[in-house]
C-alpha cells in the first residue's frame, strides 16, 4: 500500500496527527517513512506537514512532534537535511500551546520542540550520523584520527543525551494512570531507541579514543559524564520496562548495573 502521491502523504500525516489522545498510528507513520525512501527525498514530507492544520489542538501538535521524530529517525537521510531548513516552523510549534495547556501538554511540547531542534543542529554539525545513531564504524575511525573533532563529537553527544534524559523525566512526571496517557508514553519509544544508539556510540568512541591517545587525564571529564549518564540511563530503561505498552512494542535495552570499563578492548568487552 505504498503511497502514490503527495496528496496520499498529506492524508497519512493528517491521520497520524488526529485529535484522539492515543499514540500516532504506526500504520500512518510507517507510510510517511516508506514514502521518503520510495522517492528518496524528505522535502515533500515537510511541505505536506506545513499544509496540515494542527496548531489549534495541543494533542495534534504533540502527535505531530512524535511523527516527525520517527520520520527523522527512520526515514531517508534527506529528511534530516530538509528538516534543518524548516527549523523556524518547528520552533513555532513550541509556542502554540500556552502555559500548561488544557491537558498538560504545554511543557512537554515545549521541551520536545527544543529537543528536536537540538537533534537537527547536531546532525547538521556532524553529518556522518544517521537518524538513530546506529553504529557505523567509519565515523568512529574518522573521529579517532582527529582527536579534537572526536572530543567535540562526544561532548555534543553527551549533551544530546542529557536533553533526552530531561525530556523523559518530564514525560514520566506528566503521565497519569489513565489510558489516555498512551499518547504521552508513546513519545518514549523513539527516545529509547535514540538514547541507546547514542549510548553505544559514545561507548565505542570513548573506547577507541582511550586506545589511540595516551593522555588519560584529558579524557577524565568525558569519562565522568559518561559514568553518570550510564546510571541515569539504567534508571530510565528500568522505568520504561515497568510500562506494559512499551514492553510489548519495543525491546527495551538492558544495561549492566555497573558502567562498562572504557579501557577494555572492544572485543573482550562485555557485549551490550
Amino acid at each position, binding site marked *: *500500500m*505504498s503511497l502514490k502521491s503527495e496528496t496520499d502523504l498529506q492524508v497519512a500525516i493528517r491521520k497520524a496527527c488526529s485529535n484522539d489522545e492515543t499514540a500516532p498510528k*504506526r*500504520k500512518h507513520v*510507517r507510510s510517511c*517513512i*516508506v514514502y521518503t*525512501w520510495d522517492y528518496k527525498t524528505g522535502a515533500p514530507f515537510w511541505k505536506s506537514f506545513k499544509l496540515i492544520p494542527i496548531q489549534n489542538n495541543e494533542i495534534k501538535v504533540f502527535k505531530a512532534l512524535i511523527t516527525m521524530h520517527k520520520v527523522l529517525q*527512520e526515514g531517508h537521510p534527506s529528511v534530516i537535511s530538509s528538516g534543518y531548513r524548516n527549523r523556524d516552523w518547528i520552533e513555532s510549534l513550541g509556542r502554540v500551546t500556552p502555559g500548561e495547556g488544557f491537558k498538560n501538554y504545554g511543557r512537554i511540547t515545549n521541551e520536545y520542540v527544543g529537543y528536536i531542534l537540538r537533534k537537527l543542529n547536531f546532525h547538521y554539525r556532524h553529518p556522518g550520523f544517521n537518524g538513530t545513531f546506529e553504529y557505523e564504524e567509519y565515523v568512529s575511525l574518522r573521529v579517532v584520527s582527529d582527536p579534537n573533532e572526536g572530543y567535540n563529537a562526544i561532548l555534543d553527544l553527551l549533551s544530546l543525551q542529557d536533553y533526552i534524559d530531561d525530556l523523559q523525566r518530564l514525560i514520566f512526571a506528566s503521565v497519569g494512570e489513565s489510558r489516555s496517557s498512551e499518547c504521552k508514553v508513546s513519545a518514549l*519509544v523513539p527516545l529509547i531507541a535514540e538514547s541507546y544508539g547514542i549510548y553505544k556510540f559514545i561507548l565505542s568512541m570513548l573506547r577507541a579514543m582511550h586506545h589511540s591517545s595516551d593522555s588519560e587525564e584529558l579524557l577524565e571529564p568525558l569519562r565522568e559524564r559518561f559514568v553518570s549518564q550510564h546510571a541515569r540511563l539504567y534508571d530510565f530503561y528500568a522505568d520504561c520496562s515497568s510500562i506494559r505498552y512499551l514492553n*510489548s*512494542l*519495543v*525491546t527495551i535495552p538492558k544495561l549492566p548495573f555497573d558502567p562498562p570499563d572504557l579501557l577494555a578492548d572492544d572485543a573482550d568487552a562485555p557485549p551490550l
Partner: protein
Amino acid sequence: MSKAFVRSIKNVTNGYSSVQVLVRNATSNEPSGPSVSEMAEVSSHTFDQGEFLEVMDMVDKRLNDKGKNWRHVAKALTLFEYLVLNGSDRCVHWAKHNLYIVKTLREFTFIDDHDKDQGALIRVKAKELTSLLLNDERLMEERRLAKERNGH
C-alpha cells in the same frame, strides 16, 4: 462461498500471472501456511529475471498490506526470509536495497476485535530478518547451509 474461491476469481480479474498467483496463495489469509513446498516453488521462480520482478512486486504488496490483513504481512515475511536464504542472489540485493520496508515493520501493531495484539509475531519476524540482512557474514553462511540442505 469459500475465500479460496473468491481469491481465484480475483486472480483472473486482476490479471495476475501464474507466479504471482503462487505468491498470493502462499501468503493468503488462511490460518495455516505457507508450506515449505509452496515457498520452494516460489523461490525456484526467482532465478528468472522477469518472474523475479513479478514475485517481488507481489511480496512488496503483501508486506505493505494493512493491519486487518496482518496474516498477509506475517506470511510475506516468512516467505521473504525463505527467498533471501534460498532464492537467487537478486533476492538478497532487492532485500538490502529495500531494507526500510522490513525495518519499519519492527513496530507493526494491530489490535483485533478480541483486544489481542496480532502484531507481536510480525515484530519478532521483522527484527529477525533485519538483523540477518545487516549481518553479511551470517547471511552468506546461512545461504551456504541452505544450499547444502537443498542438495545443490
